[in-house]
């Protein structure tokens, strides 16, 4: 075989292979072509075996030509491979298309009850001012629910708390969280900053603003120099945290046997902004809690010397605060547990 013949065979191999590559319709066929031509036992190797028979001066020339053919074939294969791959990918992508307008897979997300979350929000505000949560029993005795709070038996102020009594003599369902004040004073020494959230009970017919079970948060702060002015400042901070920094507040006299002086604390009506509407009985104000300076009698039952220590207490209805935060008008909704209501609190 001479040089020209060999060169011709190389050219023929190149042309044939490029034609085959162009005809391949998938990558696997193409790779098979590549192996058949360029592999160790491929057709190119077979052609190159003839080089040994050439004159020494022809060998580099044919060798160079062979390399050029190899490169040309590889380039053709690469090009065809690229074409085939993009075609295959396109086919796959087209096949994989979905209806992206269909809705996504639902993920279950539960909800936390607004009463619990409101109590937590209240505790968070007072927590900033150093108040810690305490708890006391819900089944109380008359002594702690009333007498230690300066409400003796047969006191007319008992009318303020219609009471549910139980079949254990002397016991009742606590009508307010205030007995917790006594509990805290027995457990901690001043300075005291305590918050007492919890369930309370009253003999009360159910309507949009009353229930026989409800939740309260009580607060108690006692130290040597805790004043009515401190109470006002703290309640202002609370009202601003809950209802907005520019919400006007009103501090006015109230009455509770266990505080002296006693306070009622109002915020400007959140419905009408003080104009006067049915929600605020046209007064422009909504009472959100009762408070006052702890009565000396209560301090004494708590084991504290009223000459040395003084402080304040406050109590608020959780549902009332929740109503105002969430624009709810009927507190029966909280204990009805209709999921259509509760699931909004997500």
């Amino acid at each position, binding site marked *: 075989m001479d040089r020209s013949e060999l060169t011709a065979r190389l050219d023929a191999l190149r042309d044939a292979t490029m034609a085959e590559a162009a005809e391949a319709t998938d990558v696997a066929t193409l790779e098979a072509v590549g192996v058949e031509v360029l592999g160790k036992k491929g057709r190119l190797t077979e052609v190159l075996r003839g080089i040994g028979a050439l004159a020494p001066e022809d060998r580099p020339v044919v060798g160079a030509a062979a390399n050029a053919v190899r490169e040309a074939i590889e380039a053709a294969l690469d090009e065809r491979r690229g074409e085939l791959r993009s075609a295959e990918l396109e086919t796959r992508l087209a096949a994989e298309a979905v209806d992206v307008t269909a809705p996504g897979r639902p993920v279950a997300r539960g909800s936390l009850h607004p009463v619990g979350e409101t109590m937590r929000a209240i505790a968070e505000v007072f927590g900033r001012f150093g108040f810690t949560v305490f708890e006391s029993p819900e089944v109380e005795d008359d002594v702690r629910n009333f007498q230690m709070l300066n409400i003796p038996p047969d006191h007319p102020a008992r009318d303020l708390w219609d009471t549910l009594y139980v079949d254990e003599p002397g016991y009742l369902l606590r009508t307010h969280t205030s007995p917790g004040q006594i509990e805290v004073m027995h457990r901690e020494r001043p300075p005291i900053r305590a918050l007492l959230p919890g369930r309370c009970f009253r003999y009360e017919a159910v309507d949009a603003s009353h229930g026989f*079970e409800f939740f309260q948060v009580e607060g108690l702060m006692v130290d040597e120099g805790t004043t009515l002015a401190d109470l006002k400042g703290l309640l202002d901070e609370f009202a601003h945290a809950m209802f907005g920094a520019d919400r006007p507040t009103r*501090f006015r006299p*109230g009455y509770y046997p266990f505080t002296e002086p006693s306070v009622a604390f109002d915020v400007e009506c959140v419905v009408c902004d003080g104009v006067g509407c049915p929600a605020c009985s046209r007064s422009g104000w909504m009472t959100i809690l009762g408070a006052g300076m702890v009565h000396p009698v209560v301090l004494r039952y708590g084991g504290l010397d*009223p000459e040395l220590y003084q402080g304040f207490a406050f109590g608020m209805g959780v549902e009332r605060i929740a109503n105002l935060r969430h624009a709810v008008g009927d507190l029966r909704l909280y204990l009805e547990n209709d999921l259509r209501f509760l699931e909004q609190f997500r």
Partner: protein
Amino acid sequence: MRVPLSWLRDYVEVELEADRLAERLTLLGMEVKAVERWGADWRSVVVGELLEVRPHPNADRLSLTRVTVGGETLDIVCGATNIAAGQRVPVALPGAMLPGGRAIERTEKMGVVSNGMLCSGDELGLTSDAEGILILPADTPVGAGLMDLYGDVVLDVDVKPNRGDALCLVGLAREVGAATGAPLRFPDCTVDEGSDPIDALLAVEVEDPALCSRFVGRHVSGVAVGPSPDLVQMRLMAAGMRPVSNVVDASNYVMLELGKPIHTFDAAAVTDGRIIVRLAHPGERLETLDHVDRELTGDTLLIADPAGPLAIAGVMGGASSEVSGVTRDVVIESAIFDPVSIRRTAFRYALRSEASLRFEKGQEDRLARLGADRTARLIVEWAGGTAAIGRIDTAPDEPTQARVAFRPSRVDRLLGASLRSDEQQALLARVGIATEPAPAGTLVPIASSPEPLSVTAGEGEALLAVVPTWRRDISVEADLAEEVARVRGYELVPSLTPDTAMPSYLPDPLAMRHAVREALAGAGLTEVVTHALVAPAADDRFGPLDDGPVPPGEAPARGQRITVTNPLSREHSVLRRSLVGSLLDVVGTNLRHGRSNVAVFEIGKGYGRDEAGIREWWRLGLALAGAARPAFWADEGRAFDLDDAKGLLELIGRSIGAGRTAYAPLHDARDLHPGRSARIRLGESTAPTLVGRVGELHPDAIEALGLRTDRVIVAEVAVSGLTEGVPRPVVALPPPRYPAVERDLAIVVPEATPAGEVMETVGAAAGPLLVGQRLFDIYRGAPLAAGDKSLAVHLEFRSAERTLTEDEVETIVAGILASLGQRGWSIRT
């Protein structure tokens, strides 16, 4: 307390506009709940003069009238008989709207057109007279709107229980004076007396002065009982009391005016003119004014005569001695009774009244005399008759004013103010509290209970407050601090952020509850809050669930149930001992609303009592029903099953760091499916972290409760830290440095063998290098023998110190196989 402003003006000058007055009273502590426009519903009611009254041609009982209302003359048909030409009467014009929404139109009555209506006092809500037309004074301007003449503003004042003295117009007039400085005009209590001395007509004997510290009696003879003057009736109506007769109205008028409940007797019914104030004899009976015949208990204080009971003192009069149309002579009772006795009696007979409410709060002693005199004066004025000379008075010495020492410096310290003592004195003077210097060594009263406490004032430190006799609420220093603060105005209290010492840090007892709540809400459950008071049947069915030793720090669910003795309803009459019943209520309600899925939880208390006393315990309860996953276009839906509940409890277990999980079959729990319920216990047996039960509701229970579903899964568990725990910080390990070796085993066991037992056997045999075991398949059927099942578990072995060799793992697996073989279980290969 309803306060007609026009009446209030009898006792104090009021220049403020009504809304402003309401605000001032509120800021003074007399909260005005509502400002009512009295008469606002007399639209198009005007004063008319009757020009002519003649019989109706077609109806005997009707009259035809011609009325001028100033300019216009109207023909009006009227059914009343008390009218005559020349009278001035209220005329409702066509288009008028009367109280109660009654619309007046031009109508035809028996063939005659009537252009409106002449009104009775009752129709206008002005007086109680429904028989006749309201005849207005002759000088009433014709054509004037009735609202302009008789319209009023009525304040509804919430007088607090400590201020019984303000539960009357005079008391509130004093408060107005405190706000504005206007002086009080006390009502005239002088009596024009006749010639008979009262001693000849009335004798009073008080058997128990502790229960009736003072009894003042007056006697008026020759009265003509009839309606009160219209103005009086109008005032009583506006104040919310129905006029009865001039004599009875006089006593009610004095009660509203002075706050002194008064009772009047027909003197003819008082045997021998002798009144005896005594306790009832057991078995004695009295027909009270409401015509109920009552058997009296021995602790009921009575007004009696020698023949028997006349009235329940301070609570309700008797029918036999009631003042009526035939009454000629009247005995007036104005007494001071023991507040506690009255309160108990009123509750005992369920007869709480305006009178008993005032007695309960305690009465100023002086009012016994003033009330008797004022009533006698008004009776003579309105009903005629002659008052006997003098009064019967069982305790005529009136107590002097109390003196209460206080330290202005201490008032300042309490209020966070810096008021000079002369400023404090001036403020107190506005509510009638005079001040005097206190001598050295004066005792300042601090508290009256548990036993009286007072401190000795330093030199010049204290002042003596001279407390008006009506202010029975002022007895200790703090009471004066409140007076100073409220008269000055709470709006002047500075608003300061507390800057005193902070308490030391304490953990939040709710932290664990919050962590569990977050975990379950994150897992898709809705938190509910249900009633602690439930029906007895619900408690019978579900509580208490005692599942053995509870986590340390948690309380066991134990004890008899606690029953409310005065429940609002049977549905809410006992304290629950389990949350399950309440949760099933929630499930039932929501399924009835058409929900396809309900997944709820509650962290709540159970309650019980035993020899140790009252017990309360915290539990986590959950209930699952319906679709765990709704059908979705790409997925099939799936219903909740037992494994969902178990998975949720295991999630809680993991989040609180519980170790081992153990379930034990529970075959005999009432209301649970015998094959689908278990006790669950997470953590070590000595210190479990989650203990309770989980199961599917028994089909019988589903039916009994009327639940609209096939399956409900419930659980109730005690969880470590629910009572007052804080989640512990995670103890974190670095990622493993050495690879794991994994093996799968298919273990063939009899059908009845619990998977938990098999996995425990594997775990025990494997030792500490087994770090994970997961049951991934349960297979039944060929080629297994009938009655067998194959449990496929995936095992993960790992050492923290080195790479495990194949040989090591093979040795462990051989040990596991040997252990399984000993139990008679085989391996499927």
